[in-house]
């Protein structure tokens, strides 16, 4: 019998790792991820989880230890945030290039400087190009579900890629929400035993991590990219199987009341729920609006996004960080790029807000909708709009 409990996203993710029967976790504490390694340590100490808990001395070593444990075929899990994700940056590329199916939760945190332990997406955007499968959670249920799902997809022999599960620092990591926890038997049915086909073992000695001279490096990268694109099929299959067993079906792009909507807002992460409330208020006063929650970030869901925005006149994309000197918010740039080839496409407006823990209220999203419509109609000299910044924002020009 599944049960409904109040859990922080951090504890939900830890519980998912426990139910997935991870073998190894190597993690370094950093706000706002700390509740994850703490809960895992507690589980190991109590015998609730049989796993090697490696209290590494830095995030770089955390993900490096994960490379080692994945290489010998252990189901491996870790978590980090902000500066930690940055410190392990080179290891992040290595994990995907070496095709180790590590699952890593990121409690999204703003990047220094100045120091900020609070939530935004600058840490996630800094790892866009690293080759991991990446999803963004909207709430704590997704934090649990997508962590379990991540093992299913990453470890699939047709995939073998690491998976990053993002959820907002503090607004999800430290907030208790109701989460439906399944039966262990259901998780066991969903998750096959991990059989890494290239496990290091003296019985069949293999070399992992040979270096790539110019003659061959390009081919390795193309092979990696093609494999990442192909993983989409298993991503979707994994969500289908998840829904069949647990009753909750997930899609790469979630459309909320978008049918016939002339203006759409696109958000990622926990703000999607806030924005949905704004959409409801606007709709109740007769406005033609809807929301798109972008759940699958990498590989980018081109087909689903193009389908989701069909018919809309305006698409307002909300980013939770600045891509300095760039063409707009990072997610907005990618959305624009995805729609570039479409004969008919909405006017895309870029908004940035919610940085470093700055909250976005329902009213703020109502403003985003109003101002987004205004910019689409009248244009704006700024490359992106901001919300919630004190002082008039001008000078974000090309």
């Amino acid at each position, binding site marked *: 019998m599944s049960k409904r409990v109040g859990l922080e996203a951090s504890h939900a993710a830890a519980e998912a790792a426990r139910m997935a029967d991870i073998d190894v976790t190597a993690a370094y504490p950093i706000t706002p991820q700390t509740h994850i390694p703490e809960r895992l340590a507690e589980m190991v100490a109590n015998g609730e989880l049989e796993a090697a808990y490696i209290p590494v001395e830095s995030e770089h070593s955390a993900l490096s230890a994960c490379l080692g444990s994945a290489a010998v075929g252990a189901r491996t899990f870790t978590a980090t945030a902000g500066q930690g994700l940055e410190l392990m940056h080179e290891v992040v590329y290595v994990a995907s290039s070496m095709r180790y199916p590590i699952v890593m939760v990121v409690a999204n945190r703003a990047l220094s400087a100045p120091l900020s332990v609070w939530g935004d997406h600058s840490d996630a955007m800094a790892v866009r190009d690293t080759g991991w499968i990446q999803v963004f959670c909207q709430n704590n249920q997704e934090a649990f579900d997508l962590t379990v799902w991540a093992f299913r997809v990453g470890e699939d022999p047709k995939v073998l890629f690491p998976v990053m599960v993002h959820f907002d620092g503090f607004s999800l990591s430290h907030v208790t929400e109701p989460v439906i926890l399944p039966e262990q038997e259901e998780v066991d049915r969903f998750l096959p035993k991990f059989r890494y086909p*290239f496990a290091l073992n003296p019985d069949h000695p293999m070399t992992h991590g*040979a270096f790539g001279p110019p003659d*061959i490096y390009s*081919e390795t990268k193309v092979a990696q990219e093609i494999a990442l694109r192909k993983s989409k099929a298993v991503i979707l299959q994994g969500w289908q199987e998840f829904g069949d067993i647990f009753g909750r079906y997930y899609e790469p792009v979630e459309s909320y009341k978008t049918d016939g909507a002339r203006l759409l807002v696109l958000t990622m992460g926990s703000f999607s729920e806030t924005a949905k409330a704004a959409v409801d208020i606007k709709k109740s006063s007769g406005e033609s609006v809807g929301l798109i929650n972008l759940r699958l970030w990498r590989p980018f869901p081109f087909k689903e996004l193009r389908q989701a925005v069909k018919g809309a006149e305006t698409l307002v994309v909300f980013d939770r960080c600045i891509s300095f000197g760039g063409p707009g918010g990072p997610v907005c740039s990618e959305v624009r790029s995805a729609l570039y080839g479409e004969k008919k496409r909405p006017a895309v407006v870029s908004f940035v807000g919610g940085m470093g823990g700055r909250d976005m209220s329902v009213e703020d999203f109502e403003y985003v909708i109003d101002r987004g419509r205004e910019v689409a109609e009248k244009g704006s000299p700024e490359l992106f709009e901001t919300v919630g910044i004190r002082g008039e924002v001008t000078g974000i020009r090309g």
Partner: protein
Amino acid sequence: MAKKKLKAASELTWKDLEIGNIVKEAGSASARRTGDWRTQRPILDKKKCIKCALCWLNCPDVAIKPPDKEGYYVADLDYCKGCGICAEICPVDAITMVEEEEK
């Protein structure tokens, strides 16, 4: 033992690569004959040799092989880079390094 003919890096397509670029065949680098680096080669005087195996033990290139039927340790010229350590270390000066000649 015949050495397998392996494709060079420049002959491989992206499809030929293993997942994660893992190399499954142990010791496959022995297909590379590094002996052509050599500018001098070791010559063994079997009359002096006491078959102590020090040359075999101290060869960085794994070029000096385990003893032949007569018990002598002979350098495999496919791999010997001609460093001269064997000649320097031989306790009875049974090995001399001579310049490689142009053929």
